[in-house]
């Protein structure tokens, strides 16, 4: 029943473990194992080293950066300072706090709307045998593939007409194009796996469908709802395209958009400032990934084939 959230399929585990115990350690095996672990180390380094480098740069002063890498400013510099982090919040033309709050508000609101709308639709598509369910699912999938850049022109005109340009609120609606397709598919797939008897008991007791959805189905589907919420939050938090197209004044910027304005002067890029902002914006996402790795992996894949 929980196979949508149990991310790896542990069927061959026992057989595999037995096989590996039987395996004899020949020289060839050892060389192979060493090469494998070497490859793993290289992959992990490529994935994570740039983060270390950005953290390092964010802790340097301007003069240290322009002096180049080497000497006292080696891979691990002898002198570090957190000045850039303070500057990001105080010393620039605007504080990074506003964009961070904007991003948080928009991403959370998008997540809430996504969960409500997608669980309703997911339930209907999984359970209520409506006509044209296949076509609807196909359309939802197709909408997820729609070129974002093709939408911004007309949406810009609409927002301009409504006087909603340079406001974070319309973003909540347009971000749904990122979140709704994957969330609806994921929840629909999960609802399908919940045994029908569970609902029948509640329905026979005289509860309506909506009550059953709220009181019985959603609580059982909580892991999937949680996964959909995490993915929605990440997708909304990461948007750049809509923000750069519709927002013009810095106090209304979202965090990813604000980053691009930090540390830019006409002649020089101050990497310590811009990298400090990058470190700050990366932390919530990195924490989410660390704590919900399995959920994210299963969520990404449950939407596509299961």
């Amino acid at each position, binding site marked *: 029943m929980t196979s949508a959230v149990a991310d790896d399929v542990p069927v061959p585990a026992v057989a595999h473990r037995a096989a590996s115990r039987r395996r004899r350690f020949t020289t060839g095996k050892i060389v192979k194992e060493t090469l494998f672990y070497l490859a793993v180390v290289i*992959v992990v380094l490529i994935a994570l080293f740039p983060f270390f480098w950005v953290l390092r740069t964010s802790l340097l002063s301007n003069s240290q950066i322009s002096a180049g890498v080497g000497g006292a400013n080696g891979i691990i510099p002898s002198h570090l300072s957190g000045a850039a982090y303070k500057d990001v919040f105080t010393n620039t033309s605007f504080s990074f706090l506003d964009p961070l709050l904007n991003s948080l508000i928009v991403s959370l609101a998008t997540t809430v709307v996504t969960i409500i*709308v*997608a669980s309703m639709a997911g339930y209907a598509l999984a359970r209520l045998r409506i006509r044209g369910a*296949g076509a609807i699912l196909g*359309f939802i999938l197709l909408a997820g593939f729609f070129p974002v850049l093709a939408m911004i022109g*007309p949406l810009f005109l609409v927002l301009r007409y409504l006087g909603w340009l340079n406001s974070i609120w319309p973003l909540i609606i347009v971000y749904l*194009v990122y979140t709704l397709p994957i969330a609806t598919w994921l929840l629909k797939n999960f609802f*399908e796996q919940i045994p029908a008897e569970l609902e029948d008991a509640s329905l026979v007791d005289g509860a309506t469908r909506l009550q059953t959805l709220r009181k019985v189905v959603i609580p059982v589907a909580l892991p999937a709802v949680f996964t959909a919420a995490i993915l929605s939050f990440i997708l909304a938090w990461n948007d750049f395209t809509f923000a750069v197209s519709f927002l013009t004044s810095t106090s209304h910027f979202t965090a990813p958009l604000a980053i691009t304005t930090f540390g830019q002067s006409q002649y020089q890029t101050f990497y310590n400032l811009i990298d400090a902002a990058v470190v700050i914006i990366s932390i919530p996402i990195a924490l989410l990934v660390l704590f919900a790795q399995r959920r994210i992996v299963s969520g990404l894949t449950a939407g596509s084939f299961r």
Partner: protein
Amino acid sequence: MTANTGPLREGTGADGRPARAGRRSLVKRLTPPRKPPRSSKQGRPAAVGHARETGDRRLGYMLVAPVVILLLAITAYPLIYNVWNAFHFDNLSYGNLPHNFVGWKNFTTMFDSPQWVSALERTLVFTVVTIVFDMAVGMALALMMHRRFRGRGFLRASILVPWAMPTVVSAVLWKTMFDPSAGFVDYILGAFHPAWSSLAWLNISVWRSWVAIFIADSWKNIPFVAILLLAGLQVIPNDVYEAARMDGASAWQSFTRVTLPMLKPAISVALIFRTLQALLVFDVIYIMTDGGPGNSTESLSFQNYNTFIINTDFGLGGAMAIILVLLALAVSFVYVRVFRPST
């Protein structure tokens, strides 16, 4: 919103038609086989069951409506609007000039523009190089993550982190890495050859700018390919490999004869996602080079953004957007045709 319902309804029809052929088979493959309908075995009188059935269906439409309406409003409505704009004059920088019908003029302007044509070429080359490289590396990573070993969870988390980051982060990360004085790349290259210790990458050399963009883009997006492929690997039953081994297949043979064919659905999904992403590449370029040096790293999406938002030319932009949508549809359609289940 009420003002929009007119064009919205039209949108369903016009949007649906070109897509339908490709859509059906894609959905068929991605949808799990339909479960047999639940019969009313629960001993409930048939009449009540029937009444609930119709009630359910009505409720079903009400529950599905918000998703459909919202997604139509964000995708189909702009598409229709683009089609209308593409045949009209609509440029905000000319003040309130009337939006006259101009026929194919926006399209001819676009096709006659060497800038746009070279952006098209660049985007296509970038897409091909990207999918070949990303699929190969993604497959290697998936096989790596599929193996059971100590530290697999850590490997997975490390691979997932770049994917989860905003594109802004990956772009700024690699912009820092490639900077001649702040960066790591020139520092390490300098260890091999002194002349390489201060290579300028971004906005100076055209091909080095593309290399930097390519690396930043692949670094962020390969993990997604890898995870889709990993999920495909996990549903291949182990006895298929056992059987292949019994028949004396080598590791390579069992990869090409067992793994790859059984991975076909996963590969097709990963290919569609990745190709569309690469074809629509925008924010990495915007942040890393802003299209420079000159306009040598401008992609189709980048020019579309410039036309819409910077030049506020919604007629020409609409024409460009239609080409983008057609390209995206063509790609999905071709993949769905090629990867149709062979049975």
